[in-house]
């Protein structure tokens, strides 16, 4: 597999684009004033033939951006599937399913879908999205066509969003 086919670049670049486009479209609930020139942080690492990338922002999170764009009809339709889950996890899963992450313009917001598409184009790997008090983990096993999805609650509010990938590089090396 070539790097072009791995889907790493679209996923990572779109995650950053999402931050700059709309992660800071509102005031944080805690009033924390972070350094205004720094909107996102990125970590990359290769260890034991596995590539790790993480992007973090201190914006308003999925729970507040998702309702701005997703039609009520879709939210209603999907609500029963996500019933009982942490509300931040619900927002993350809703964004992934709808392919929208923010903004009222129909032409925007496919970036969340790109984050998940990395796993399919890479043919295996893990994606973890943590936002405020929820996190959702997607794991695509080699040979599988759809990722396993698990969602959880955090005991603390991280007051931001982290998108993290774990991608084995075996086929790229």
């Amino acid at each position, binding site marked *: 597999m070539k*790097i*072009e086919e*791995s*889907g*790493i*670049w*679209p*996923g990572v*670049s*779109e995650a*950053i*684009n*999402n931050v*700059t*486009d709309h992660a800071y479209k509102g005031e944080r609930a805690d009033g924390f004033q972070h350094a205004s020139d720094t909107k996102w942080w990125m970590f990359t690492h290769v260890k034991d033939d596995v590539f790790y990338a993480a992007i973090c922002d201190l914006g308003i999170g999925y729970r507040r951006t998702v309702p701005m764009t997703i039609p009520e009809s879709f939210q209603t339709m999907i609500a029963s599937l996500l019933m009982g889950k942490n509300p931040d996890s619900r927002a993350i899963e809703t964004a992934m399913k709808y392919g929208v992450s923010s903004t009222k313009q*129909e*032409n*925007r917001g*496919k*970036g969340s*879908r*790109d984050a998940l598409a990395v796993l399919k184009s890479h043919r295996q790997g893990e994606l973890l999205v943590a936002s405020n008090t929820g996190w959702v983990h997607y794991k695509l096993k080699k040979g599988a066509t759809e990722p396993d999805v698990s969602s959880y609650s955090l005991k603390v509010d991280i007051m931001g969003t982290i998108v993290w990938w774990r991608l084995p590089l075996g086929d790229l090396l």
Partner: protein
Amino acid sequence: MNTVNVARDFTRYPSGRKIDSGPTSGEEFGARFLIPHLNSQSHVVIELDGTIGYGSSFLEEAFGGAVRKTAITAADFFKLVELRSKDPALVQEIHEYVVEAARSGSK
């Protein structure tokens, strides 16, 4: 015939939507390589292969944005712009952005 190879003529690392995201954004690509051809009604071939990949925002703003800014129909767009790639899903994705941008613009 005009041919634009994205990797050769623009960047191997396309990213971002708006020009303020950086010099490799979709808006920048559209402004430099699509809109001039649409305005002058000249044919252009866009060779997409060779970059490290395309994010949705880049593609939507480059192609959909060019449609919105020129108010061209989808049919006329594809008379002037020929997309070439070994990845049919990539061409299909751009096609959808163009059609949607033309449809939204005609509302």
